[in-house]
Structure formats: structure tokens, C-alpha cells
């Protein structure tokens, strides 16, 4: 009697294990299928950029037939200005934007997280409000302002606002991070006679490196991909950023050179991929805590 129950329960457990294994396999297959479907166009983009132009409209597979770098060579100098210039422009704008955001956003965030000052609650509410503000509301008058200042066709409209913490998201992100640090650090430093700026620079900044990394990575990706602001503020092709240069292919009267366009598109995505791979930890934390894109 007891032996049979033991035997049945053992076989039951074995059956349950088998069922759960089947379920796991099913789950993995489904996830892999979904990922394949989602990422197929991207992989195909990369493969196609390395194949002769005519295959782009005839070969949906990923077979690496007749690999060539022709598209890259053609694409690099497809416009009057070389892509080296476009990449240089994008790199300059992006690095400046990162510096601006790190500096201005961490300064404001320190005050909001640690200092008592008049109307702080009101300023914080305004700060959060500006996060939700569509850029389209301000872009028309900003255009008027920048044209008055003579800033059109310079990088200033893309870069200057960052040095004034215009990307209020990051202030919020860093505030949330500083709030998790023990307050005693501040008090101890104050007793030691540290001024607020010294506390910010010597104590807080080194501790919020993860939040700064998240800020830097998101700033990189957004600025690198940004299209609508360069579209409005830059008309001189020598100042174009990479996304603007990609658009030139689509505008071309003679029809699009898809191979060259694909090749340059791939190049434009590579830095984003690198940041994605090496900065994933910070990206995931950033989205999970504040809902950034």
C-alpha cells in the first residue's frame, strides 16, 4: 500500500517535471521565434548593406552571397560633403550635449534633493511639468529667437539648451538617485565645515556615477538619433548631422541609392549598439526608475 503510493507519487512528480520541461521548451521556442521576427529586418539590413545593390530588392534571405564593401565606399562620399564630416558633426554635438546635461542636471538635482530653499516645491512641480511639455510648443518661438541671435546654421541651438538643464528628465533621474544616498554624509561634511559646492563635488558626484552614466547614455542615444531639431535649425549641408545626411539619400532626385543608404544607416546605428551593449545595466535601471524611452 505505502509502496504503491510512493511509486505513484514519484511517477506523478516525474510527470510534473516532464510537463514543466515541455513548457519551458515551448516558452523558449516562442521567445526565440518572436525575437527572430523582430530583429530579422535589422540583421537583413546589415547583410544587405554588404551585398551588391540589386540583391536588396530580390533577396530576402540572410545568405552572405558576393560580400562587398562597395556600398560603404560609395555611401561614404555619396553627397557633396563626406560622411566623415557628418559623423564629426554628430560626434561634436553629442559630446557637447552629454557634457551639458551632466553638468547642469547634476547641479540642479543636488539642490532639489538635498537643499532647502524658498519655493522649492513649486520649482520642482514646474520641473516635472516641463518633462511632459511637447517640444513643438516651443520650437517655433525658439526658431524665431535663434534666428534673432544669429544662431541658425550653428550647433548652438542643439547644444546650448543642454547646459541649462533643458532635458529636465535627467534632473529628475538624478534627484531620485541622490535621495537613496544616506543624508548623514551631508551632515558629517557640513560639520567638517564643507561648503555646499564642495559637498556636491567631492562627496555626492562620486557617489552618483551610476545615475550620471544613465544620463550620459540616454543623452548620447537621443542626441545621436535626433532629427527634428537639426531639421529645423540646420540648412547648411556642411553642418548636417548623420540623420540629416541619411535623409539626403531619400530626397535625391535620381532615385535612392539603397545600397549606399543601407551602408550609412548601419554605420549610424553602430555607436548606438555599442552603447546599448556596454551600458545596458544603466539603461535598464534608467527606464525602470523613470520610464524613459
Amino acid at each position, binding site marked *: 500500500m505505502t509502496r504503491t503510493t510512493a511509486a505513484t507519487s514519484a511517477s506523478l512528480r516525474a510527470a510534473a517535471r516532464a510537463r514543466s520541461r515541455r513548457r519551458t521548451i515551448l516558452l523558449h521556442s516562442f521567445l526565440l521565434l518572436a525575437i527572430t521576427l523582430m530583429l530579422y529586418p535589422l540583421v537583413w539590413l546589415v547583410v544587405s548593406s554588404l551585398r551588391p545593390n540589386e540583391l536588396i530588392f530580390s533577396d530576402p534571405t540572410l545568405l552572405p552571397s558576393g560580400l562587398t564593401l562597395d556600398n560603404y565606399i560609395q555611401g561614404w562620399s555619396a553627397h557633396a560633403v563626406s560622411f566623415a564630416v557628418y559623423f564629426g558633426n554628430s560626434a561634436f554635438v553629442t559630446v557637447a550635449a552629454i557634457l551639458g546635461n551632466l553638468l547642469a542636471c547634476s547641479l540642479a538635482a543636488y539642490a532639489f534633493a538635498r537643499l532647502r*530653499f524658498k519655493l522649492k516645491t513649486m520649482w520642482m512641480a514646474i520641473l516635472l511639468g516641463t518633462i511632459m511639455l511637447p517640444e513643438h510648443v516651443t520650437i517655433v518661438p525658439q526658431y524665431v529667437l535663434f534666428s534673432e541671435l544669429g544662431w541658425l546654421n550653428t550647433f548652438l541651438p542643439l547644444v546650448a539648451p543642454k547646459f541649462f538643464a533643458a532635458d529636465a528628465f535627467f534632473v529628475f533621474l538624478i534627484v531620485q538617485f541622490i535621495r537613496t544616498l544616506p543624508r548623514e554624509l551631508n551632515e558629517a561634511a557640513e560639520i567638517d565645515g564643507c561648503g555646499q559646492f564642495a559637498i556636491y563635488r567631492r562627496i555626492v558626484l562620486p557617489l552618483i556615477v551610476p545615475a550620471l552614466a544613465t544620463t550620459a547614455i540616454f543623452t548620447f542615444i537621443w542626441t545621436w538619433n535626433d532629427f527634428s531639431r537639426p*531639421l529645423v535649425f540646420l540648412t547648411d549641408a556642411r553642418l548636417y548631422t548623420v540623420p540629416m545626411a541619411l535623409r539626403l539619400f531619400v530626397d535625391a532626385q535620381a532615385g535612392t541609392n539603397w545600397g549606399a543608404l543601407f551602408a550609412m544607416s548601419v554605420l549610424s546605428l553602430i555607436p548606438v549598439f555599442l552603447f546599448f551593449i556596454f551600458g545596458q545595466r544603466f539603461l535598464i535601471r534608467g527606464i525602470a526608475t523613470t520610464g524613459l*524611452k
Partner: protein
Amino acid sequence: MPTAAPVAPRKRPRSSRAARENRAGYGFIAPWLVGLAVFVVGPMAASLYFAFTDYNLLQPPQFIGIQNFVQMFTEDPRYMNAVRVTLTYVAVSVPMQLLFALLLALLLNRAISGVGVYRAAFYLPSLIGGSVAVAVLWRQVFGRGGLLNQALGALGVDAATSWIGNPETALWTLVILNVWTFGSPMVIFLAGLRQIPSSLYEAAAVDGASPARQFLNITLPLLTPIVFFNIILQTIAAFQAFVPAYIISGGRGGPADSTLFYTLYLYQRGFASFDMGYASAMAWILLLTIAIVTAAHFLFSRYWVFYGDDEK
């Protein structure tokens, strides 16, 4: 009082410490305050004024009252079309995107190997979904001889239509693009799911609740704040979608204005025909719409969003 003098503290009095902190606070937020005035509040005030003017940058703005708004709603079929296209896009793509995000988050929220890799792979499209490179790829994939039709052809389906060139389907290619970027709400869902204490599920299992029951009575209610958060974020983002429509239609919003997003029409009016007044009026309607939709979500949220302690 003569006795007051000797009591005067040697150190600076307390109020001075608060004053110092106040000064320091304003010092730290000074760059942001300047930016707020110069790049946000000033432009918003100017924009509000422009909205009631006829302004083409060359001549000074002419005050014309509410005529821009009247024109929008009564004499401009392209405007009403842009409203319709955008509302359709928001109403269709956001729920679909969030449904995928929730489904995948639920599947990934278990002890299987490789969760990190899966999560990263699903997340990747969100990072590049707004880029010109991906919009360009989309233009090819859904074009006449594009990847989709090639794949359909390989499967024996003869598809010679251009999904982008057909006014019936062009908007759907943009909906698919937005759904494709479900990774970022998915990551937020996953973070929310991790917050649900496992003791609740253990207790429910002891009581004999089926997995479906556990999902309906534990997971779903406790996840509603995250659902709400995601709806707000993605709705606001979808209202402002611009790049894919611009690239796919070559800046025109075609075919037959079927991808003429609100922001794209705003751009055309503001920066192609330099109707700065009209574009400003459009921007304010967009802002008001987003504010009203968000406020409505907040009002409606009390009927379905569950915040745990009711007595709070």
C-alpha cells in the same frame, strides 16, 4: 533691553544658516532657471502670442484674434485630417504596443535561463525606433519590392502592392513601427512585476487558486499603477511621433495625406510655408489635447488603478 547684548551669539545665528542654504540652492538651480526662462517660459509666452497672429518671420506679427483657430477647425481639411490620422495612430498603436509589452513581460517574469538576453533583445528596437536609419529601413521593407513582399513571394503569396504607397495601409506600417518598440514599456512592466511579493502567490497557491485566478486577482490589480504609468507615457509620446512619418513619406505626409501626423503638418506650416502664427496655434491645441487626455486618464484612473492601502 540691555541684557540682550551679551547674549548675542558668537557664531552666526540660525537664520543665517538657512539663508546660506537658500542662496546655495538658488545657485545650484541657477542654470536650470535661466534655461527655463530663455528656452521654455519665454518661448511659450511668445508662442501663445503668435497663436493669435499672422506671422511669417519677414513682417512683424499681425494680431488677428482667434482666426487661426477658426481656420483650423472650419476651413482646413488637411488639419482635420491630421487630427484624425494622429488620433487613429494613438488609439490603435498604444494599446497594441502595451499589450505586447505586458504579454512579453509576463512570459519573461519567470525563472528561465537567459532572461537578460531576451529582455535586451526585445528592448533594442525601442532605442532605435525613432531613428532615421530605422525609418529608412521601414520604407524599404514595406515598399513595393521590399523585404515584406519578397518574403511573401517566397511563401507563394504574390504581393505587388506597396504598403507605403497605398493610403489604406501606409498608416499601418507606422503603427507596426510603434508596436515594434514595445521593449521600453515591457522593461517597466517587468520591474513592476518584480515588486509583487511572492508571498501573495504562495498564499493563493495554498488556497488552491489556479494560475489564471492568481493572474486576475493578484498580478493584474497590483500591476494597474504600472499600466497607468505606461499608458500616460506612451500616449504622450505617440501624440508627438514625427520622424518615421517624415522619412516614410519624404516629408509630405502622403500618400493622400494618410500619414500626415499632426506634428508633420505643424512642421510643414511652420517651417516650409513659414506660417508661424498658424503653427503656434496648432502647437497650443496639441498641448491642450495632451493635457486634457492626461487629465482624463488621471480622473478615470480612480475607477481601475489599485494603490494598495485604501485608507491612505
